[in-house]
């Protein structure tokens, strides 16, 4: 009796070890291949950061490695007024869009899911149909419209046309459809106003999906290029992606260019490291792109 109880854990450990060894025998090449592909995938970023932290000159990673690393390039980039303006513009573009899209799409999603009003279905399907019209196909008329309203090279001209986001409305509606009606009715019986129901019940209940959507909207706008390119025609409203394309290797050192690129990717990396699990799960579940 004593023998069996003392030997049991070690037997189990032994069995687990054997299983692991069996697994590795068949599959270590797969693990090695996966590791290799992963390293290859991140290596352009690693190379970018190394060059960004290299002293001036043209270090050619991986042939010629820098002898020492320096923050000079980063501080020079951060002290150039153009770069700082672009970064702030990108932040304004992304953050204002996040706030307004989350608000408007959750309001519309709530109405589409839980309210009855004339034309609801027709309206919803029209929204969905606009998903099939690629933004680039309407780039010219949208620009002409914004131009005629005096919106070229202004923040509202940059931001407002991108706020009509059918993916966001669709996602919010689908999520709120899944919430039980009783949650909203109870509050209404208690005499809460519609706005109060939205503010104190709809918004808190949709927090997880709002967070996911917020991350995506931030990335979409931070990384957006074509619309900011045509609308933000001077540094006053130029975003970081557009600003980066005005930097040319012929005119500036590679290490400075890479330092600019490296700084521009920091918000994306922050989002990635803090919210990776969130992003991964929501792509798998909703197909949000």
């Amino acid at each position: 009796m004593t023998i069996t109880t003392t030997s049991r854990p070690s037997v189990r450990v032994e069995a687990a070890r054997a299983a692991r060894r069996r697994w590795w025998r068949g599959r270590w090449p797969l693990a090695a291949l996966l590791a290799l592909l992963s390293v290859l995938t991140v290596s352009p970023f690693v190379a970018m950061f190394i060059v960004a932290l290299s002293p001036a000159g043209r270090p050619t990673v991986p042939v010629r490695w820098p002898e020492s690393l320096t923050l000079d390039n980063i501080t020079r980039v951060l002290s150039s007024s153009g770069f700082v303006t672009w970064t702030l513009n990108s932040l304004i573009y992304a953050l204002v869009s996040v706030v307004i899209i989350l608000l408007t799409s959750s309001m519309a999603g709530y109405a589409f899911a839980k309210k009855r009003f004339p034309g609801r279905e027709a309206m919803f399907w029209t929204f969905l149909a606009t998903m099939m019209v690629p933004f680039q196909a309407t780039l010219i008329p949208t620009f002409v419209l914004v131009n005629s309203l005096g919106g070229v090279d202004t923040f509202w001209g940059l931001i407002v046309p991108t706020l009509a986001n059918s993916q966001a409305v669709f996602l919010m509606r689908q999520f709120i459809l899944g919430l039980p009606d009783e949650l909203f009715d109870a509050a209404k019986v208690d005499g809460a106003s519609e706005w109060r129901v939205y503010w104190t019940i709809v918004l808190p209940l949709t927090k997880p999906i709002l967070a996911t959507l917020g991350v995506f909207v931030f990335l979409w706008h931070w990384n957006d290029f074509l619309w900011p390119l045509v609308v933000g025609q001077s540094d006053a409203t130029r975003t970081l992606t557009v600003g980066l394309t005005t930097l040319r290797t012929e005119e500036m050192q590679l290490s400075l260019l890479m330092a600019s690129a490296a700084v521009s990717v920091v918000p994306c990396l922050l989002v990635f490291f803090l919210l990776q699990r969130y992003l991964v799960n929501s792509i798998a579940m909703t197909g949000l792109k």
Partner: protein
Amino acid sequence: MRQRLRDPVTGLLFVLPVLVLFLIFRIFPSLGAAGMSLTNWNIGGEWDIIGADNYVRLLDDVNFWLSLRVTLVYSVVYVPLTMLVALGTALLLNQVVFMRGLFRGMLFLPYVTSFVLAGIIWRWIYEFNGLINGLLAKADLGPVAFLEQSGVVLPALAVVAVWKGFGYSMLILLAGLKAIPSSYLEAASIDGASAWQRFRRITLPLLRPAIFFVMVIETISAFQTFDTVYVMTGGGPARATYTLIYGIYDHGFRSFDFGYAATWGMVLFAIVLIVSLVQRRFLDRGNT
């Protein structure tokens, strides 16, 4: 009773902000695109209706057919390549338990960055004294002018887009793989099916909806390629990377020929519509 009266009003009020935004910035421009393609709208905002002239000009435009071919060739390289990489990495992630979270994160990382950033990094990687040619020189090979040769430049751009975007498709396919009941595969393996047979006869058929979804998404994104072209080649060399969207941009914002640029946009719309409708039809068939 009061409830029923209150509902329509609040419903409409809650939809109103989105409705206004959509009417002005999505629906009006969509109709406007069709309208503008029938005019000779220019930078001064003057225009006359010129009927189908823009479409006739389009059919006669060597550059239009060239850009269609460039876009098509690009898609033919990009879509299979990205599907292959995404499916391969998804299968590996599904098999290997060892440090799976880390590897998945590393493979997914480029997806959260921008095409502009990808273009800037890869412009340097492809340069004469860049990363790849540096390695080639060490092996006494090269240099290869990746972005200056018409035969090489489209695949070179496709590789950049694959690198930047495959993480998304990989995650969709990985979710599809995880949804396949392991009992199916175990049963087949007890019956003596080889790994290839299990993949070919069980995994692949069950993964078909996910593969199809990813293929449609990637095809549409291939037809919308612009950022990497703008950053890396500017449509060159000799218009070898003059994609459809680059044509819209070029005619609209370099020649300010808005009417004609809108006509190019209509072609893009038609292509995306056809791809979406094909997807619809296939999905419907899959459901019945």
